[in-house]
């Protein structure tokens, strides 16, 4: 959880830290999100999801990976309470959606695009969730300052979104998610439109912020490398109909340094996930051909 008096900017190099195993933490933690037998059929008859089942426990970093149109974003939106399910159930903190927003059950969403209000300065964009929750105290101003500092946007608070680069806009979007001090962060392919260097940098930033704030993250991506680097679990989905076909544990403790990207262990996980993804794509095609 982000605290008001603890601010660590993102830009300095990561300090060496004690390794902790997510697997251990996961075993003792309670589920934050439970998706059970969820089907989603759109009005035009398209089956977006079929029998999706997934449990996300506290402290996990779960990536949803799959070909286009496999229902990753649909599933994520359902997890955010933004989409109705046709059948099945979704539980947040083992309760109904009403619990979302209460203390200890806060949820934030980072969209594929930065989704900033173009008419508002960065500061106003970042403090939007607080404004919507009528939080106008001096403490809320400090939360905005801290969030801007943590994502490395201090000094850009009076800029308009158009004056920022794509990466900086995405950082502002992450800062906006941070100010509410979320317990569960849902990210819908947030770095998909960025160049590889910026993407790698933001990947490291997200891992750092996750550690500092104790976030649980569900992350949609198209990139096998990104999924393996970031996640404690990679959930592979197949298309037509969208369904979960594999759940691969990445048993590499956090923190993960950029060296992990060039290790044989990383290559091994990438191969395993790629094979699962190929199988998933094959499933979609064979269905389609039928």
């Amino acid at each position, binding site marked *: 959880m982000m605290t008001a008096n603890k601010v660590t900017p993102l830009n300095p190099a990561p300090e060496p830290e004690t390794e902790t195993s997510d697997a251990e933490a996961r075993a003792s933690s309670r589920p934050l999100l439970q998706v059970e037998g969820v089907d989603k059929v759109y009005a035009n008859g398209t089956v977006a999801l079929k029998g999706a089942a997934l449990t996300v426990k506290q402290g996990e970093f779960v990536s949803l990976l799959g070909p286009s149109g496999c229902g990753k974003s649909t599933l994520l939106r359902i997890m955010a309470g933004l989409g109705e399910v046709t059948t099945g159930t979704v539980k947040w903190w083992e309760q109904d959606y009403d619990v979302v927003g209460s203390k200890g059950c806060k949820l934030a969403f980072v969209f594929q695009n930065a989704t900033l209000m173009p*008419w508002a300065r960065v500061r106003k964009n970042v403090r*939007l969730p607080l404004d919507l929750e009528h939080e106008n105290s001096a403490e809320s101003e400090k939360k905005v300052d801290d969030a801007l500092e943590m994502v490395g946007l201090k000094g850009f608070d009076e800029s308009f979104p*158009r004056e920022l680069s794509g990466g900086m806009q995405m950082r502002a979007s992450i800062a906006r998610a941070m100010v509410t001090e979320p317990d569960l962060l849902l990210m819908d392919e947030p770095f998909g439109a960025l160049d590889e260097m910026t993407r790698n940098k933001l990947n490291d930033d997200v891992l750092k912020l996750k550690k500092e704030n104790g976030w649980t993250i569900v992350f949609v991506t198209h990139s096998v490398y990104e999924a393996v680097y970031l996640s404690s679990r990679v959930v592979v989905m197949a298309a037509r109909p969208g369904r979960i076909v594999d759940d691969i544990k990445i048993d590499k403790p956090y923190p993960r340094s950029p060296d992990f990207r060039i290790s044989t262990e990383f290559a091994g996980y990438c191969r395993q996930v790629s094979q699962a993804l190929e199988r998933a794509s094959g499933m979609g095609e064979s269905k389609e051909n039928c």
Partner: protein
Amino acid sequence: MSTPLIRNERFVQIAAPLLVGVLVLLLWQISVMAFDVPKYLVPSPVDIAESLVTDFSSLFGALLMTLKVTFLAFVISVIAGVAASLLFVQSKWIEVSLFPYAVLMQVTPVVAIAPLIIIWVDDTTWALTICAVIVAIFPIISNTTLGLRSVDPNLLSMFRMYRTSRWQELVRLRIPGALPYFFGGLRISSGLALIGAVVAEFVAGTGGAKAGLAYMILQSGYNLQIPKMFAALILITLTGIILFAAMVWMSDRALRNWHESALKVEH
């Protein structure tokens, strides 16, 4: 080193159309003089300028009357148009039920209904204003409704995630997002308010103290005072240009920090 005037964008924006205007006027003056065209057929620019000076008091009084109707109609169109748009976006049912009537007002020629309005409304100024409102209101309703509905769906999802009220959604998201569309509507509507006022004056044919520029044109035509007719026409055109320029200025002021339409692109 100072930039040559020819490379100054602002200077070119003003000077280029001005130069074209001066050339056209010169050509006009020379043609009228060369072909000895009588004043009652095509007056020369000098004749028109003379008329603007000699008939200033009657033309200025008529201009004020036309301006009064135009401004009243424009202000009412903006207030009523925005109110209607806000009502439309509250529910698809309201929009579906009422929007066809807004279209009905737009497609009914004002010259066809103006005589009725003039019969029904005693006060001439208000009768003319109502006619002008009927002409000017539709772009405001149409554009503002479109703007209020054209919200980034992700931003809307975010607002809904925080369980915001409709009021918060309207004030913080829909209204700021609709501003470019609203200003687009203003640009069209300001010109239409003037056209509506002039057309209504033509139909009403009001003289005396309430004579507007349209009446001046009619009267001058009957009396073969063609230079005065042109002078009245020029005043109408100038009013339209000034109104449009004012709307562009307002729009630029409001949107210059964030909207593509008002941003200065640096190469």
